[in-house]
Structures are given as C-alpha cells and as structure tokens.
C-alpha cells in the first residue's frame, strides 16, 4: 500500500498508541471523581493539555478540548451569538441567549438570512465546510482568495465593517496546502481595532484560524500568529480521531455549545476523553519535534514527484505545505484515476474527501479559478509519515501508468 492521503487521515503513531493505552482499562477513572486514583487521572489529563498548549505557545487553561476540529470550529464561530448569564435554579450561572441567536431555520448560501449586522462574520471562501456552514448560519460573508489560493487582503479590508466581529482564515488550506499570511491579517486587524477605539466603537474584532493541517510542518505560536482562536485536530497529526482543541485567548469570552457538568471551564461539558487527549499530547509533541526534518523530507519528495510525473499542470505552485501536491490532468476524470490507482494499492484523493463523496465540485478549486474540467481532472496527493522515497518514486510511476491508460481509453472511444 502506498498511502498518499495524509490530509484526510493519518494513522495513529505507535508511540501515541502506547501513551494512550493505560487510560482505557487501567486508569479509566472519571477525572471529576473524588478518590485519589481519579485525581491522578485528572492530573495526567491536565498535564496532557499543557503539553498540547505548549506546542502552540499557550497555557493549558487557554485550551478547550473538543471532539475534533469540526466541533472546535463550530464553537469558535458561535462566539458571535450573545449570551448573558443568569442564576439558574440551583444558584449556578446559566447562559441565556439574548442577542443574535443562531437561527435554526434553513440558511444556505442560496438563501441567506438577512443578517442584522453587516458582515458580522467574514471567512475565507476556501475554508472547510465546518467553518463555511456555520458562518453562513450567522450571515457570514466570504473573503476572496487570489489565484494562488492566498487571501486577497484588499478584499478583506473592504469587507470589514464596524459590525464585523469575527474573521476566520485557516492557517493551511486542507485541499491545497496553501499557507495563509496570518501575521499580515493580524496587523490589519490591529490597525482597525485602533481606529475603532479612536472612534469609540466598542465591538470586538477577533481572528480565528483552523490550523488542523499545520502542526507537522509549521511551528505554531499563537502569540506570533496573533490569533484569538485556533483550531487543532489530533487526527491530522498521527493522533486519534475524534479529538480536537480550540485555543481561546484569555481575553476572549466564548459561548458554550454544550452544557452539563461544566468541564473545560464550563465551555464544553462532557466527561473528559482522557486517552484521546493523552494521545493528542504525544502526537503534538512528536509533530513539534520533527517540524524541521519533515519540511526537508517533504520538500525533497515533492521535487521527486514533480520531476517524475508526466503530463500534469501543478495547481499549488507557491505558499504551500511541501507535503501537498495538487495536480491537474485536464481532460481526464481524476475520480477514475482514484479507482484505477486503488487497484494498484495507491490511495490518493480529489479535492477534500467529503466534497468528493457528494459529487459536488470543489469550492476551493473553483475559488482559485479552475474551470469545471480542470477541477474534474485534479488529483490531491498528501504525503506523510507512512511514505518513503522509494514509495514516492513508485507512486509516480503508477500514477503515470494510470494516466496513460485513461488517455488511451479516451482515444479509443
């Protein structure tokens, strides 16, 4: 098997699995329980959270653990709903929706609800659906990307109004690997905030970034990036699936989506996923340790692929993670290539896995200006820990072979 779809899923690293193992059947206690063994589990959980936080230059108390990146993104965007806390029957404080409540009537891009605020939420048009769909619910407005896939900063500036509260731009795009210049966005935001204060406009302006794809190749530091909210996902960094985290800057007041036992500082109730978080921590630690080595390795492999493959147009030319190679075989149906390659034990993808399965064309590839036939001919290769240089060369050979056989079939038709 040559697995070239690491942006979709990564296998759990053996060291991660080993770190998790004790917490399933042995140290299984509920961290909230009173007895000593449970307290030890609680301490291990906090230590794991601290490890994850340190990997991005944050503190454990800045993290809200979620069941994956989708939930973290939902939680982040939910910040634009207004709550006030009122004492509930038992005396504890319960949040009550007061301002802009999420409208659960059908809000789609075709049928946008008229938002009470102008451009309350802005999001990059190439964001994952877990940002796009939520943003649409809050009347979000997309920010354009340039042909390179990089954010159009002029468009962003033009769309920020005094009503804008949240901007969501992923650190790395999940279909193209495009790295967004968050620092430039941050400095624009700083200027705007300054201007708002000068004019007495009190509304907050926050930057959220989905960094799920990044930790293996980018050394993330939330302070340096200047983000207020950052999404992480264990499943993309050789950790377990179903575990994610939202970094929340201490100045930001989040609105919980899940109420209950008050775990995660009341921001995400539910018994802690101790083995998942312990695994996540180990995975983040390993990712951070290998960032530099990974970059070199994938840069070399990317060169090999690009020189040995034939008859393609490279889609992600610049500002991209080196393990992402997006190719366009115009005139060929890339989905057919997937099935041909699958028979040879080579696993690749077209666009994002979820988009492909719905038969919809990729909104990301459309956003960077690819035509329908170019989109249909686009193949995404994402390299990772399971690969070797030998595999990369073999994959190039098999991909060339599949493309040739498809071209032949079309010629004979």
């Amino acid at each position, binding site marked *: 098997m040559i697995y070239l779809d690491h942006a979709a899923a990564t296998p759990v690293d053996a060291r991660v699995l080993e770190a998790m193992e004790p917490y399933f059947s042995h140290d299984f206690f509920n961290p909230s329980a009173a007895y000593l063994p449970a307290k030890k589990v609680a301490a291990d959980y906090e230590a794991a959270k601290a490890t994850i936080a340190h990997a991005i230059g944050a503190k454990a108390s800045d993290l809200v653990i979620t069941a994956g990146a989708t939930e973290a993104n939902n939680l982040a965007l939910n910040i634009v709903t207004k709550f006030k806390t009122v004492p509930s029957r038992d005396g504890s404080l319960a949040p009550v929706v007061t301002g802009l409540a999420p409208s659960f009537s059908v809000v789609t891009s075709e049928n946008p609800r008229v938002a009470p605020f102008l451009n309350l939420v802005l999001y990059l048009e190439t964001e994952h659906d877990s940002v796009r769909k939520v943003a649409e619910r809050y009347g979000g407005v997309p920010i354009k990307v340039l042909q390179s896939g990089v954010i159009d900063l002029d468009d962003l500036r033009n769309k920020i109004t005094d009503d804008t509260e949240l901007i969501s731009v992923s650190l790395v795009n999940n279909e193209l690997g495009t790295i967004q210049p968050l620092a430039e966005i941050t400095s624009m935001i700083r200027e705007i905030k300054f201007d708002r204060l000068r004019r007495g406009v009190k509304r907050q302006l926050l930057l959220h970034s989905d960094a799920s794809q990044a930790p293996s190749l980018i050394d993330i530091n939330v302070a340096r990036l200047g983000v207020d909210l950052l999404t992480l996902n264990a499943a993309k960094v050789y950790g377990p699936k179903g575990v994610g985290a939202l970094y929340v800057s201490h100045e930001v007041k989040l609105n919980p989506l899940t109420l209950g036992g008050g775990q995660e500082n009341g921001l995400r109730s539910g018994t802690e996923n101790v083995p998942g978080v312990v695994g996540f921590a180990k995975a983040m630690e390993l990712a951070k340790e290998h960032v530099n080595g990974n970059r070199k390795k994938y840069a070399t492999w990317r060169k090999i692929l690009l020189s040995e493959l034939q008859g393609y147009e490279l889609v992600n030319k610049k500002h991209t993670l080196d393990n992402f190679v997006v190719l366009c075989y115009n005139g060929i149906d890339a989905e*057919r290539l997937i*099935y*041909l390659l699958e028979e040879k034990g080579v696993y690749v993808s077209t666009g994002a896995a979820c988009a492909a399965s*719905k*038969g919809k064309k990729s909104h990301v590839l459309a956003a960077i200006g690819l035509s329908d036939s170019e989109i249909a001919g686009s193949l995404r290769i994402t390299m990772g820990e399971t690969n070797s240089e030998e595999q990369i060369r073999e994959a190039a050979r098999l991909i060339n072979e599949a493309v040739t056989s498809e071209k032949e*079939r079309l010629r004979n038709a």
Partner: protein
Amino acid sequence: MPKVFVGMSGGVDSSMSAALLVEQGYDVTGVYMKNWSRDLPGMKCPWAEDLADAKRVAVKLGIPFEVWDFEDAYREKVVEYMLSEFKKGNTPNPDVMCNQEIKFKLFFEKAIESGADFIATGHYARTGLSSRLGDFRSAAARGLAREPRGDGSERRDPEWDDKSVLLRATDGNKDQTYFLYRISDEALSHTLFPIGDMLKPDVKKLAKEKGLHNAYKKESMGVCFVGEVGMKDFLKEYIEVEPGEIREIETEKVLGYHEGAIFYTIGQRHGLYISGNKGEVNDGMPYYVVKKDLNKNIVYVSKNLNHAEIWKKELHLKDIFLRSDAPEKVQVRLRHRAPLVPATFDGETLYFENEVKRPAAGQSAVLYDGEICLGGGIIAD
C-alpha cells in the same frame, strides 16, 4: 458493435449486468440516474455512495461512465404522483411509476438520442418476441428468450423488430416484472436484461469471482428514496395530517386515535395505537384496518380477519396497460413476489376463483399468461 447504455445503481445486479454486456462484446456506457439526493431528517440519502460504487465498477470494467440528472422529472412524475395518491387515501407504488416515467422513458429516450441501440438494467426480467409467444405460453420456457449478442456470434434476430414481450425472470424469487409491467413497447423492444435468466445467488457468486467489490453490498429495500426512514416518516415531511378517530367497524365504538388516516392501509395490522380497558377491546386479538373514511378522517378496524372489506372475489382496475390482448383466463400477481392467483379478466374487472386478501387501492394488479407478463392495472377501490 451495438451500443448499450446500462443503468448502474451501484448495486450488484446492475454491476453484474454491465460486466456481462462488456463480456458479450457490446459497446457499453454506464449511467447513474440521479433521481433523488435529498437527505431527510435522521437519514442521509445514500446517492453519493451509490454513485461512487457504480463509477468504481465502470472504471474497473474500463467503460465510460456518466451521471444523468433526472431529479426534477423524478420529483414531478414519481414523488408528486405518490404524494397526491396518498392524499387521496390510496397506497401508490412509486417503483412502478419510476420505471414507467424515468428508467424506461427519460433514460431510454436520452440513451437513444445519444446513439444507443439498447438500454440495459439490472432487473430480474426477460424479454422475448411476440412471434414466439407460443414458446412461453406454456410453463417453464426457460432460456428461450433470445437477445442479440454483441460479439456477433449470434446475429441480430431477423424477427427482432417484431413486438417484444415481457417475460418473468428465471429466478422466480426475484422476478421484478411486477414493477415493469407498464413500460412502453418501444422501450421494451430496445431493452436488455442481462441477468434476467440468472439466479440471484449465481449473480452474487459471479460478481465475487469477478472481483466486483459490491458483491456484498446490502440490498436496498423498499422505495429507493424513502430508504430506511420508512414511508410514514417520509410522508410526514410532505403532507400535513390531522389526527382522528379509530373506530371498530361493527360497533362504531371509538377505540383510539390515529396520527393521520393516510398512513393506514386496508388489511394492515401494525401501528394501531388502540387504548382501552384490557379485556374490553384489548383481549390480545389483533385489529386490522378494514376501511378508511377520509372525509370524516376515521380509520375503521376490526378483529375479524375474515371481514368482507378485507377479502374480495372481484377487483376493479383503472389505468389499465396491456402489452397484448389478454386471454380471458389469466394469472394475477397482487404484490411483488406474491404467488400468482388464477382469475378471469373482462378488460376491467378481475374475477378471482378464490377470495384474495384485498390489496390497497393504488397498488398494481399484474396479469400473466404463463411466463408472459401481459400488463396490468391499478387497483381502483
């Protein structure tokens, strides 16, 4: 090389059909008919997975593959029809309508426009020629349906242009002519049913041998788009219903209340939430729906399974579609896979030799003469 467009649903039957056509030397194009893609609450429409399964098989067979979008037509001709029939208190059969209006009409027409000589589907059914009717009139005429082979080994039958007839599948368990009786002569004469003379277990076995990944795929049951939610939940999405009384027909006594009369089918036993004192009405004997009064929104039930409303010796048909003149004595199928029952037919009414359990109005009665599916009609009352 005759050109064939084969409808591929992603299931093993249509996959195997495509594989057989390729083997027989036809110029084959696989087509996924996109008829319905709407997710319902709590149930994801599996169309995208089905499409991927179909395409994977097409790629494996090395044939071109297309997606033809019939969603608007399907909604108008099948779903709207179905909803309007339910609103009238009938129990329509959307699969019959789908074959008549979509698969063997729009798909067929588009295929012919695209240069097809034939269409093919994975239905369990066979075709034959009317000039050979004699072969099939008597029982067990297995293997006599001749279809032209694409490899040229058997020349196109000179009598091919003769009128085609629809024949029951070799696999009596899987025969799907009940759903196909209304397809046009024109479509039928240009249709191939590659697995019509195979047994289902053999189809599965062969698919496995050929490495068709979907040999183990769970068979879709019931109406495709209603899927696992069930018809009731589907109807609730589209039709406003009013709760009403459930009465015992003999006594007019109110036994309980229903959610909406359209959800009930004559002869139905399940789904009656009858309250009452134990021993009085709930003595452990089941109730059956025997009558619906849609104007008063009352569902009538009875414990008497032999109630005259349930057992009938005569059934009136409407919207009759006959492929050839029906003889006076016919065999009738009243439900998919139900046994054939003898009856005489005067062109409007079926007179059964023995009483039959009355099918719901809106269902089909399909007429047979030996292996030949003559046509049928919609049960009127």
